[in-house]
């Protein structure tokens, strides 16, 4: 398919190739759409560097004096003090202390953002590792063995994805309460693994189906056992597919909100339910929220660029491949 396109795009005289003018019009429209799409993201990025008054000024300020106040507010808890108290303090040691004191406040301690971020990383990587490991095994099983009812089993695995998360959360909430898994890493990792495993099996089965079976057969003839052939022949060839699948699982766990909202509170809470509750004096502290959002979204932007060749596969559970 791709080869055909490569050939046809060279043929400038091709009857169906877009005219140069058509290309310019199409390009302009797409670029306009892309820029409009980017505006909300750029606005959040800009808000992260505004002072709180600038962030809520009317009309919205496009040009402003950049400050790191939002970031300082994100990482600290502050308390307001009287001028006399502040005058008696030793001079601030760091620039962030000076920034906070210029608003008649002192830093009372670190905020919860670092533990929440760490939770997102732990739950994300833990569930990704498990989902990919289990998914690789099952995908190999479905790809290479004659499994009775394999189509029904595969469809069953997929159908677990059709339940609304809130519907799943009701019995899980009760079950976790009984087992003491509420608000624990283990509970969240198991839950996200169960959700991700459907994606991981479907994607990896597609990748494994594409690996020619001749290699394994040759290895078996050479005296490898089935497991050795799997480890030394199939796995190395599936590395790209496994990596792409892992990133998709990681993105899901990273972005997930409903389960985290209902099943965690303090210990294992991840970033998505935490970000909306970053509050300053008198309402939401938008520069701090924007800073947290920027911090939280950056890894995903990087992953999207890394994954762009496999995106189509990932978002359709392997149904459409490029």
């Amino acid at each position: 398919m791709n080869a055909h396109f490569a050939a046809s795009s060279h043929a400038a005289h091709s009857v169906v190739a877009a005219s140069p003018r058509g290309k310019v019009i199409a390009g302009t429209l797409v670029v306009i759409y892309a820029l409009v799409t980017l505006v909300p993201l750029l606005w959040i990025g800009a808000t992260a560097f505004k002072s709180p008054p600038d962030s809520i000024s009317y009309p919205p300020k496009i040009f402003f004096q950049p400050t790191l106040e939002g970031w300082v507010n994100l990482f600290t808890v502050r308390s307001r003090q009287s001028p006399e108290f502040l005058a008696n303090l030793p001079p601030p040691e760091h620039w962030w202390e000076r920034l906070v004191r210029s608003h008649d406040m002192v830093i009372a301690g670190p905020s919860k953002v670092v533990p929440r971020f760490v939770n997102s990383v732990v739950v994300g990587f833990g569930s990704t590792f498990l989902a990919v490991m289990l998914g690789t095994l099952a995908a190999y099983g479905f790809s290479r063995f004659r499994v009775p009812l394999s189509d029904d089993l595969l469809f069953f695995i997929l159908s677990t994805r059709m339940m609304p998360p809130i519907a799943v959360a009701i019995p899980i909430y009760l079950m976790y309460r009984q087992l003491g898994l509420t608000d624990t890493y283990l509970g969240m990792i198991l839950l996200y693994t169960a959700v991700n495993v459907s994606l991981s099996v479907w994607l990896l089965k597609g990748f494994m189906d594409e690996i020619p079976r001749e290699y394994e057969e040759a290895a078996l003839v050479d005296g490898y056992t089935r497991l050795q052939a799997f480890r030394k022949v199939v796995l190395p060839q599936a590395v790209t597919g496994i990596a792409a699948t892992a990133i998709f699982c990681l993105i899901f766990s990273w972005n997930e909100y409903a389960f985290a909202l209902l099943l965690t509170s303090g210990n294992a809470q991840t970033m998505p339910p935490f970000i909306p509750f970053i509050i300053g004096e008198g309402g939401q502290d938008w520069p701090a929220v924007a800073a947290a959002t920027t911090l939280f979204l950056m890894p995903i932007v990087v992953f999207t660029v890394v994954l762009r060749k496999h995106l189509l596969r990932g978002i359709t559970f392997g149904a459409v491949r490029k």
Partner: protein
Amino acid sequence: MLMKAGNDPSAFASHLTAITPPRLSRRVRGLSDRSLAWLFIAPVMILLLAINIFPLIWAVRLSFTNFKSNLPNAPLRFVGLANYADILSDEDVWRAMQVTAHFVVWTIVLQVLLGFGLALLINQKFRGHGFWTTVILLPMMLSPAVVGNFWTFLLQPQIGLFNDIVAFFTGIDPHSFQMLGDVKLAPWSIVLVDTWMWTPYVMLICLAGLRSIPEDIYEAAEVDRASRWRQFWTITLPMVLPFLMLAVLFRGIENFKMFDMVNLLTAGGPGSITELASITLKREAFEKWRTGYSSAFAIILFVTVFGAANIYVKALNRVKQR
């Protein structure tokens, strides 16, 4: 050339086309292929049984009771089908279903029009189309909850950017409307944000469809002097249709389940104007703690989405075969 086996959406949809591979000629010492296959597949199955099926059965059982999970020691009474009868005669539930239908239908209509349009433009292969495609794809990779949260900022009536931009282009007073607070506008706000986020999804799948069309068909049509307009209706659209229908299936299921983005954007408000089924379910289950009742509602939702998806897949296969 037309569509590779793996590039065929119905292979996924029918879940029956996976060809069971021929058994490898050699058996492994000790374990038969069949027991090895089960060894590979069992871990995933056990996990899904524990985290998906067992809770589902539990939910079915609860749905016949008056259980309230904030009163776990209250006497448990079996009420038969009373919960189901209550739900089907509950006006709030029907209103939530209408809100959900409005949301699902309009997001699909807008995303299909915009996504297909963008795919046609990008398929003109102007210079830099790869880069701009990646830019356009960004929103769909982000956390829906975080997106919902930062759009509340953009849609604020006073300080938000959105009203200001609308005012700039139309001359309407930016204070004269509230996207999130107005009963008429709020249902469209959630459609707007979802469309911003998920149009790239439809676009990406349509693009794969467009690229699967062999160019010689157009060349033949050109020889027959078919107009561009006619080529679009007789070649492009029919050949992209299966891909488009697959995209609609995924978007339909996802938006029927929608919770995270809308919960943060409007939380169902103002009043209950944007209260989708999942948000009603969350209120019943985790605010009113009517566990039995909400379990019944959860099962009705699951059966609805599962049934609708199956009927739709049959239609998709018929389109494919034509």
